[in-house]
């Protein structure tokens, strides 16, 4: 490039005005878009747990067959008790005043492997247990592979005699 051309070029670049981008329309777009998206966004996702009630005691003829026996998790003040029919399989007492939920999930998964009925579990809850603990126990049942969780009432709370 010749000296004259270089000089012209530098003169042109010196004279070119600085382009200042006008961001106002973009800002307007954001100001409208953000509140409208916030207003229709769903931050809390709601789900449901399907539950069934176990059939009434004595329903059907001759009692349940061994293959039909459902695993029962009793939720009581001392902790969890896992049983099948009349036989006690495991018991998980509370750990530092809290229910041992990971222990329950592990125990149920272990027991499920040797069961004939791998789908059903009954959660029998005593009076005095709060609903949050019941949902946690049902979650542990589902987590260990049982697809149908039934809810049943356990032992009623003893009333203090006057």
């Amino acid at each position: 490039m010749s000296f004259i051309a270089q000089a012209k070029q530098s003169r042109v670049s010196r004279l070119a005005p600085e382009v200042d981008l006008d961001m106002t329309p973009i800002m307007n777009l954001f100001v409208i878009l953000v509140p409208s998206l916030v207003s229709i966004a769903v931050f809390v996702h709601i789900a449901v747990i399907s539950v069934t009630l176990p059939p009434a005691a004595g329903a059907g003829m001759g009692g349940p067959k061994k293959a039909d026996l459902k695993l029962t998790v009793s939720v009581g003040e001392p902790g969890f008790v896992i049983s099948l029919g009349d036989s006690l399989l495991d018991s998980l007492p509370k750990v530092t005043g809290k229910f041992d939920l990971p222990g329950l999930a592990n125990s149920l998964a272990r027991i499920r492997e040797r069961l004939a009925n791998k789908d059903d579990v009954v959660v029998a809850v005593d009076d005095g247990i709060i609903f949050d603990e019941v949902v946690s126990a049902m979650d542990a049942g589902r987590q260990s592979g049982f697809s149908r969780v039934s809810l049943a009432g356990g032992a009623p709370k003893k009333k203090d005699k006057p």
Partner: protein
Amino acid sequence: MTSLTSGFVKRKRDPSQEIVRPQLTSIIDMMVFLLIFILKTFSTEGNIITPSADLLLPYSASKDKASAALMIEITKQAVLVEGEPVVTLAEMEENDSLLVRPLFSYLEKKVRMVGGEKKERPAIIQCDKNIDFKYLKRILNTCARASYSDFSLLVVQKE
């Protein structure tokens, strides 16, 4: 003379009267981040059911979606069906029966109004997470006797 030439004299600009353009770069950055975050958490499905403001739902790992059904709410004070108070927990305390009479009568009336021979009607139960299970047990039993035996418990999905 002074008045004629004064028009041609170059006036000095008053720096206080210059147009001040604020720096919008940082605010635009913030808006872009906000927009990306909102779009990431955005769900097109939405919720069919709006949980009641009077109760705290428990958290669960369940991901099953709720469908429209009869809504029964158990708050710390009362039991509501479709938003209408039916029985208070204090009234339920008065007897030990598993059948809650006022609720049963209400549901029976509803079944008669709807009609049909359907055996298992769906019901969604919204229960406060701190409610004693003894109330829920009695309500489940009453609903089942009034042919609302296809239960779903409403929970908040864990992240």
